[in-house]
């Protein structure tokens, strides 16, 4: 490793009364891959956004290669060799991959008759090749690409001008194993040519594999920086949350346990991406559904909630009623946590309390008028019960960190006294502390007789939490596995592929 590439000194940033980054100082060397970890809301993304010119700092100084650095915009940051790949969707869905990659750089392709799109498409194909993503077609609108390919477009965009510092903010959540491999190759390429990478992730195994060192943040403060040899997962977790943590936060029991009563029956469900799926969900059961990302499990979750149009089959509850639409599902006390949290589960530009109360409003009406006091109590009670970190219950959900947003989603459905919860990737993109809290909550709900359908791409989570695991392959059920001490990831994978 060479000279200091980025030096940040006593950086402060607040949003209203919330101190997002407090007296934070760090140095990143050229040729270094630096991990950034911390619980949701610890300030990682805020700091990286300041480096990338998204936010302006309140106080402190930054230097790039010894020169003072005060970015006023992402364009200015880009001119200084800094590129950011963001946590959420960072492409414009309606335009092509090529247009996204060269957004704001269209003048490079100016011809006599305007922009030469053929040249732009060729250059985009080259940019994608550079990030090992030749399979992505840069000429079609990004809305036609899957989430992973959109992320690869973003990576190509970030890499097209060979940045000195590449910031990757929780991007790997959206990637499959193949996508992650591509990302790691890109990181190695940046490092090999002397650039640096600031890598933010909640996956500590990945962090240990990819990074040379790691900086830990908590509540906006700098905690410490560990070199590679000191990057031990248990220690990093404890430094992140500021307390000792057990190694195993999953269920301690090793046999399935639920009541005989069937609360939901899926009867020969078929849809474009569901093929003749039938199963029963019991009272107090955690039914895990696993498989490859495109095996149909996410569509199945929506279908159980009445949000996916079925070609045939039905979802029947214990009282004989058929679930045909989300309104009916909510009335029957079913809750659905979409894996696309920011676009399908909560309204970002909407107050936290109102988000929590949406499904419950109909219950709070007397003589046509919503009882304001009960509405207030409902939102406050669940925000408190789930320890949602917020500056005001009336703030917009957009101001919350990922883990706290997920808690709002949970509060929304628990507030409606849901007896069946469909949780699609419930711990995706959230930190270890919130993860642990969600697993604990799931076990409490199970004890109370709530039935849970947990769709997950994390095998450890499926094995650790489920009474039964329904493995899906090519839109059908390939196997149902019972909870057992002998159940391994290898066994589950065998039925997935």
């Amino acid at each position, binding site marked *: 490793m060479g000279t200091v590439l980025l030096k940040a000194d006593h950086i402060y940033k*607040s949003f209203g009364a919330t101190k997002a980054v407090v007296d934070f100082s760090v140095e990143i060397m050229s040729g270094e891959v630096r991990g950034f970890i911390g619980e949701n809301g610890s300030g990682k993304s805020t700091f990286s956004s300041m480096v990338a010119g998204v936010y302006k700092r*309140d106080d402190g100084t930054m230097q790039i290669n010894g020169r003072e650095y005060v970015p006023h915009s992402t364009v200015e940051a880009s001119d200084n060799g800094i590129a950011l790949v963001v946590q959420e969707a960072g492409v414009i869905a309606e335009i092509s991959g090529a247009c996204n990659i060269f957004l704001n750089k269209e003048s490079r392709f100016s011809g006599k008759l305007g922009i030469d799109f053929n040249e732009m498409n060729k250059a985009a194909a080259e940019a994608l090749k550079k990030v090992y993503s030749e399979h992505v077609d840069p000429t079609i609108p990004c809305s036609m690409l899957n989430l992973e390919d959109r992320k690869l477009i973003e990576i190509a965009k970030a890499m097209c001008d060979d940045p000195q510092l590449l910031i990757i903010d929780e991007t790997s959540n959206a990637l499959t194993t193949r996508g992650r491999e591509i990302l790691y190759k890109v990181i190695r390429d940046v490092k090999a040519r002397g650039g640096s990478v600031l890598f933010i992730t909640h996956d500590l195994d990945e962090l240990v594999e990819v990074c040379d060192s790691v900086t830990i943040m908590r509540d906006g403060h700098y905690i410490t920086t560990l070199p590679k040899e000191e990057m031990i997962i248990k220690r990093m977790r404890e430094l992140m949350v500021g307390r000792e943590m057990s190694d195993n936060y999953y269920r301690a029991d090793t046999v399935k346990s639920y009541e005989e009563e069937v609360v939901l029956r899926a009867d020969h469900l078929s849809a474009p991406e569901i093929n003749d799926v039938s199963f029963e969900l019991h009272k107090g059961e955690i039914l895990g559904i696993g498989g490859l990302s495109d095996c149909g499990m996410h569509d199945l979750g929506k279908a159980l909630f009445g949000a996916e149009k079925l070609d045939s089959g039905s979802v029947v509850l214990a009282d004989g009623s058929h679930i045909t639409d989300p309104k009916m599902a*909510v009335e029957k006390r079913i809750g*659905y946590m979409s894996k696309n949290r920011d676009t399908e589960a909560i309204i970002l*530009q*909407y*107050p936290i309390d109102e988000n929590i109360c949406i*499904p419950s409003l109909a219950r709070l009406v007397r003589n046509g008028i919503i009882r304001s006091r009960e509405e207030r109590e409902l939102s406050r009670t669940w925000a408190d019960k789930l320890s949602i970190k917020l500056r005001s219950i*009336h703030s917009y959900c957009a101001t919350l960190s990922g883990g706290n947003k997920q808690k709002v989603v949970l509060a929304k459905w628990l507030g409606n006294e849901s007896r069946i919860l469909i949780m699609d990737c419930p711990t995706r993109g959230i930190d270890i502390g919130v993860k642990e809290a969600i697993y604990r909550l799931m076990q409490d709900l199970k004890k109370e007789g709530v039935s849970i359908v947990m769709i997950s791409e994390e095998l450890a989570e499926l094995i650790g939490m489920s009474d039964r695991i329904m493995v899906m392959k090519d839109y059908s059920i390939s196997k149902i596995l019972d909870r057992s001490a002998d159940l391994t990831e290898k066994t589950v994978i065998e039925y997935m592929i």
Partner: protein
Amino acid sequence: MNATKAENGFNWQRMVLKLYPFFVLGLLLIFFGVLTKGTLFSSRNIKNILESSFQYLIGCMAALFIFAQGEQDFSMASNIALSAILAAMISKTSVPLALVVALVSGIAVGCACGFLYARLPIPVFFLTMCIANVIAGFLGPMTNYQSVKTPVSMLNLDNTNLKLLVAVIFAVIIYVIYNKTTYGKYSRAIGASPVVARLSGINLSRYKFAAFVFTGIAAGIVAFFSICKSGGASKATGTMFHFNVMVAMALGGATTGGPKVKFRCAVIGPLIISVLTLGMNLARIPVGMQNLMKGVLFLAVMVLSDRLSRFDVD
């Protein structure tokens, strides 16, 4: 240290941004009050302000639900013209019946718009423009391209106190529905994210339909009082009404759908327009300059609104 500034609790910038329509109205009152040496505040002019605000107050309050859903109703003007013509035709038989006809006609057009809005995948802008054109196409032949006169006795109903009473009753009803029932809350949720609203158990079709019923009712009321005031109706009745409602809502602070569309937007916006227009007339500002000033004010409000959208101000 800057970092601690935000911790000091009260944030002036946030408060100004949140309440900027009130400041705009206050500044206009002070400005024109001084410019007209207090004439603006005479009882006659106060009455004029209320009188000229009436129809837009009704229109804006009813349009709250559509604005909250992030949409607009471009058929309101045509709906008012149709309802006014039908009411004027029937008024020769019975004045109370004219009111009923105006309301029924307004609601019927609103229901038609609402039904199509809820069922067809057509942007509301195009849908309501098309409906407006269809109605406008009928109005000419229906009236033989002439205005339809009403009985002289109806002019007695053009009474400021009566209008004030109607506006207050309408405001109370809309306030309660918008803020205290699921109609208002769900409309705001739909405007902020129709996808999440649907996945939270909200029946989108029902609330989309209902939003147009409210503008239909408003069209009926405005149509009735319009013929009371002018003594007749023609296909030009209500011209540009939807546009003025849009401007008033924007001046009142409702420039996007969702939770930022507050009840107060529908009250402050029409008052701002009325004070501005009357103030400029009293100050004898030439018409060209009046348009310029309106344009500048509108631009300033849009800039403020853009600033507001970057803040977490509800």
